[in-house]
């Protein structure tokens, strides 16, 4: 069995109530050490108030070749954006 430390993906919640955001990855022997290392590597300047760590091996990603079938259908559905609908100025702000 390899002695190389597994890779972890690091997610940090910033100061202003936003979602946890992926900031990068690091190696650590276990989850506890991954949180400690993430503190040192990714929050040296007050970047966060909360840390999530997830083993990279546990992430299922969409494949680049699926890009078309997955995301192109949204292209033609412009009516999902509010600017698709013209509202007369007289109506006021909507």
């Amino acid at each position, binding site marked *: 069995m390899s002695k190389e430390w597994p890779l972890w993906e690091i997610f940090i919640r910033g100061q202003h109530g936003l979602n946890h955001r992926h900031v990068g990855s690091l190696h650590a*022997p276990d989850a506890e050490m991954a949180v400690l290392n993430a503190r040192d590597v990714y929050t040296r300047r007050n970047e966060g108030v909360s840390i999530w760590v997830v083993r990279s091996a546990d992430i299922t990603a969409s494949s*680049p070749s699926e890009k078309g079938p997955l995301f192109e259908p949204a292209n033609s559905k412009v009516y999902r954006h509010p600017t698709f609908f013209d509202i007369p100025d007289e109506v006021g702000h909507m």
Partner: protein
Amino acid sequence: MYAQMVKSEGMKSRDEMSAEEQAFQDRIDRGEKIEPKEWMPEGYRKTLIRQIGQHAHSEIVGQLPEGNWITRAPTLERKAILLAKVQDEAGHGLYLYSACETLGVTRDELMELLHAGKMKYSSIFNYPTLTWADMGAVGWLVDGAAIMNQVPLQRTSYGPYSRAMIRICKEESFHQRQGYAIMMKMASGTPAQKKMAQDALNRLWYPSLMMFGPSDKDSVHSAQSMSWKIKMNSNDELRQKFVDQTVPQAEYLGLTVPDPALKWNEDKGGYDFSEPDWSEFYDVLAGNGPCNKDRLGARVKAWEDGAWFRDGLVAHARKAAARRTPAAAE
């Protein structure tokens, strides 16, 4: 520049490219980012591993000349600042190793290549840091030269590299400014302190110019890397920019750049300056600089001395996992 003389591939003309390679080049020309799982030419992958790996190694080895002064910093505040800077270098190394690993090489492989002398780090870190003024000159000149190179690399075509560069650039400005602050203090201090500052500039000026790599006319690896947008500017272009930026800063300090040929050239809107001694550069790269053996020796020793501890943490993690779910023991 923390990556020097990165070996690239021969440049292919459009006709020599396969359809896949043409489509790839088109994506880069359109300014799209290339992401880890996407198709890329083998040469692109290999060149990036060499370049990002060398860059990461430079950050890590770059901790050593400064680590030398942590216990000897003149005040507690200076010590805390230097510690924070050296810790940043470790962080920068880690961002870059992670980016490099997305190309299909492991962290341990990169370490082994460095320790076996099969991958390089920047030549600048093979020079000694003899006095406290060197901490000032390193921050001011070495980090200054690194920033010159790293700012344009934020726009590089490889997504993970670009993101690492953005993060690094945010933090790097502190490094240069703390260095310049040390130089200001020394240069306005006693005559002996000013002399130390001048001496540091004298010793580190040419090695800093070497950081950008050999002159464009001798730079054989540039064309392909530039068309792939993993090198954004030529070596001479960045070196010129660095000199133009740094000379007025030296003047402000009342220090003299150790180059009698240095002269403002109105026509080109920049300084004329002397080239560094390139034979010295190649000699340092070949392993014969003043500190090559010390630097690599310190890295190898840290890696080997820490092996039992790294392994211990893995053993602990496995035992703890086994206690939680006996089935997960293997």
